[in-house]
């Protein structure tokens, strides 16, 4: 098993190289000159633009640009085209917002989703099941920005219960949880609503399958109460696969944060990505893509390992 894990880890390297080449290729092979996008048209002359191009290394052949970029990235001194700040610092500054938001969404989305899914699975094809399906799907079907604006108008503008936007009171810094929490309530609701439906659906079917299995029939036949069967056996065995869904949800969730961070004016990674795409700040886009990829790949690896450890029925290599 350790050999297997080692192999997975070694495989990460070519995959990351592949991802970096793809990210770089997609942005760098596009028509257009990023300096034209970066420079202020009223301010810069043609000669200045040319000088800027040389400064940013854009006069080099693309493979050289790629290698240089990766080299700077690995040594940690890759600079943003636009702000001339180290990209790592920019990401680090934005990370707490996105991490906080994502963590909140995962916790709320998964816990509520699992509860809904279990409730549905316990009473399949009843009114309750149908109603819960309908409501969770409804949340899934509402476009993110629409839901976000509705919530802002209702809870911030009309009722004044929650802050409209931002990550903390304007005159404060730092991450005091009490100060930040109210600002994350609406964004979390918006994204968790979306996640809930996915988790509930997965939980419901996983649970239904487990409950149909032989060992549960055996348990029932042994005269154990339905409650014991459900709690002791079905629940535990069916929630395990749901947890593995977690890793797969991260890239999707980060996609959702782009819109949510824009609407709620949150200083997170998603918005940084959007801004960078629009101003063609290649180093930043590349780094964000790689950063997320590393997170997801490692997350998947850990999920797999955890899964194997937790479920002895799964045997590797079989």
């Amino acid at each position, binding site marked *: 098993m350790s050999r297997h894990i080692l192999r997975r880890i070694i495989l990460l390297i070519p*995959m990351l190289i592949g991802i970096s080449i793809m990210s770089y290729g997609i*942005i760098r092979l596009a028509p257009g000159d990023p300096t034209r996008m970066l420079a202020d048209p009223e301010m810069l002359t043609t000669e200045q633009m040319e000088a800027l191009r040389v400064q940013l290394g854009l006069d080099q052949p693309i493979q050289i640009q790629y290698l240089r970029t990766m080299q700077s990235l690995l040594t940690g001194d890759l600079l943003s085209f636009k702000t001339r700040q180290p990209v790592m610092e920019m990401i680090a500054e934005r990370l707490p917002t996105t991490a906080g938001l994502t963590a909140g969404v995962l916790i709320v989305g998964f816990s509520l989703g699992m509860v809904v899914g279990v409730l549905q699975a316990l009473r399949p094809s009843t009114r309750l099941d149908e109603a819960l399906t309908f409501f969770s799907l409804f949340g899934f079907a509402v476009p993110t920005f629409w839901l976000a604006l509705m919530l802002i108008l209702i809870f911030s503008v009309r009722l004044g219960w929650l802050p409209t936007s931002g990550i903390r009171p304007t005159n404060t810094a730092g991450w005091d949880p009490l100060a930040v929490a109210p600002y994350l309530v609406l964004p979390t609701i918006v994204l968790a609503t979306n996640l809930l439906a996915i988790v509930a659906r997965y939980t419901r079917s996983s649970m239904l*399958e487990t409950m149909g299995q032989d060992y549960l029939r055996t348990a029932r036949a042994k005269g154990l109460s339905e409650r014991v069967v459900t709690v002791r056996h079905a629940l535990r065995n069916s929630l395990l696969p749901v947890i593995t869904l977690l890793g797969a949800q991260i890239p999707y969730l980060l996609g959702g944060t782009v819109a949510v961070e824009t609407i709620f004016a949150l200083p997170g990674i998603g918005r940084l990505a959007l801004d960078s*795409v629009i101003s063609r700040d290649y180093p930043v886009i590349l780094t964000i893509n790689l950063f997320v990829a590393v997170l997801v790949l490692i997350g*998947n690896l850990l999920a797999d390992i955890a*899964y194997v450890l937790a479920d002895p029925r*799964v045997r590797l290599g*079989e």
Partner: protein
Amino acid sequence: MTQATAPSSTMAPAVNRTRVNWGDAQRKRSAIPTWRRLLGNRRIAIGAAVLITMYLIGLLAPWLSPADPNAQILLNRLRPPSTAHPLGTDSLGRDILSRAIWATRISLSVSLVAMLITICVGSILGLLAGFLGGAVDMVIMRLTDMLMAFPIFILLITIVAIYGSGLGLLILFLGFTAWPLAARTIRAEVLSLKHRDFIDAARINGASTARILWFHVLPGVLSVIVVTATLRVATVILIESGLSYFGLGVTPPTPTWGNMASEGRLYLDTAWWITTFPGVLIVITVLAYNLLGDGLRDELDPRRRGR
């Protein structure tokens, strides 16, 4: 590397790696449900009814639409619903009902075509990976791992922003970014079929790989493909509306539900009708696709039958 090693990435609950034996081919074939049974499922019936209505609206758009969807009467901006404009007018004085009808046509076709691309690519690669195994499987699966590690939405924003979002391009982008998930789901299903008696029998009878794939494996995984496809359309509709929020969806003035809702969002407080109607259409359609997908899964998946 078996499917057990990659559990985290499949979202289709129907594929459970812990299950090993679920009956033979005989049982599977007889499990194919009749139309009558399918429509007896409430989710399928509701989903299908809504979608048929929507597609009819889209198909008949030229006849149903009371006005030119792009005709602007600036003096008629932001009018609330009235007899002249049953759903009101938008910020350029365009008739929202007409735009919504045409948007139905465009949103439905964009999502349908993008889904077809996703499913075709995903099915082919999933079948090959699952059935051939070995190096082919390895390469395809690492490729899907790679693509699935990408923040897909950020990738989409990047390519759409840089290469543009004409209708055709957008469909291609939406189609080609999502196949890994489909490929994975289908591969997992193929793996569970691969060593079953009827496949072995075909092999012993000297059938070619292509033949086995086409006549024996594909029918076995068809139900998974149908379910995946159904759910995928819904997702594409939502992604298009998400892109529209950033002005990166289908390029206006071509109306889609997404760009109509997004354009009107500034007036949410003062002219609610602009976003509300396209928003409701999105919700209804996505909901219908999901109901249909869930229902089909319940009915088509023999493991779930009788429950």
